[in-house]
C-alpha cells in the first residue's frame, strides 16, 4: 500500500480508540475471590497476631535447643567431630589382622 493510503488507514483505525465499549466484570467475581480470601484470613490472622509469632519463635528455639542438647549428651562424639579427629581415631584404634614379620 502507498504511504499516503497507509497513513489514511492508520488515521481511520486510530480514530476508533475512543469507541471501545467498557468491559464488564463477571457479576460473581466476589464468589470467585472468597475461597482465596479464606486462606488470606487464616494467614493474615496468624501474621497480624504477635502472640502467635511469639509462640512460634519460642517453639522453634525450644526445638533447636533440644536438638543441640540431644547431640551434646548422646555420647556419639563423631556426629559433631571433624574429619581429622575421625581419621586419627581410626588410625589409633587400628589393629592389623596379620602381623607383618620382618
Amino acid at each position, binding site marked *: 500500500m502507498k*504511504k499516503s493510503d*497507509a497513513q489514511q488507514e492508520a*488515521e481511520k*483505525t486510530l480514530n476508533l480508540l475512543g469507541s471501545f465499549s*467498557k468491559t464488564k466484570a463477571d457479576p460473581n*467475581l*466476589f464468589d470467585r*475471590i472468597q475461597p482465596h480470601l479464606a486462606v488470606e484470613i487464616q494467614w493474615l490472622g496468624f501474621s497480624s497476631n504477635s502472640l502467635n509469632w511469639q509462640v512460634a519463635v519460642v517453639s522453634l528455639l525450644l526445638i533447636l535447643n533440644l536438638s543441640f542438647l540431644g547431640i551434646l549428651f548422646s555420647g556419639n562424639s563423631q556426629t559433631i567431630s571433624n574429619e581429622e579427629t575421625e581419621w586419627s581415631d581410626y588410625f589409633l584404634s587400628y589393629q592389623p589382622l596379620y602381623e607383618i614379620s620382618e
Partner: protein
Amino acid sequence: MFNTDTDLVDQLKQKNESAFRYVVKKYQDQVVNTCYGLVQNKDDAEDLAQEVFLEVYRSIYSFNNQSKLSTWIYRISINKSLEWVRKDNRKKRWGQFKNWLGLTTEPDELENKSTLKPDEQLEDEERKKILQHHLQLLNERQRTALVMLYFEELTYQEITEIMNISVSSVESLLFRARQNLKNKLTTYYEHI
C-alpha cells in the same frame, strides 16, 4: 453503607468481609476494564482482577488516605497488569526461540493479523483488533496513559494522580503515544 472512603478503609483494615464485598462490587468493572485495556484478554483480565482485590485486602494497612481509594486501586490494577504483560512477553520470546530452534511450530501472532485485508470495507471490528495489537507494542507508560484515557475515560487530572506525574507530562505522554501508534499502524498498512 459506608459514608466516606475513610470509613470504608477503616473497615477494610479491620478485615470486615462485608466491607471487602462492597469494595469488590464497587470497583470490579473499573478493575476488569483497566486490566483488559492493558492485557487485551477478557479471561486474563478476570484472573488479574482477583489478584488485584486480594492485593487490596493484603496491603490495605499501607494505604494511608493520601490518595483516593479508587486511585490506589487503579495503581494496583496497572502494576499487576504490566507485570502480567512482562511475563507474557517473556513466554512469547521463549516460544519464538523454540520456533527458531525448530522445537515447536507455534504460529506467529503477527502472521495471523496480516491475513486481514484492509480496504474501504474493512469492518470496524477488524480495525479494532489491529488497533489492540498495536497498542501492545507501545511502551508501558504510553500504553497505560492511552488505556486510562480511552478505555477508562478518565480526565487528565485523574491520570495525573494515578501515574503520579504532572498534567503537562500526561499531555506530552498522550501526544507521543498517539503519534507512535499512528506510525506503527502506518508501517503495518504499508506492508500488507
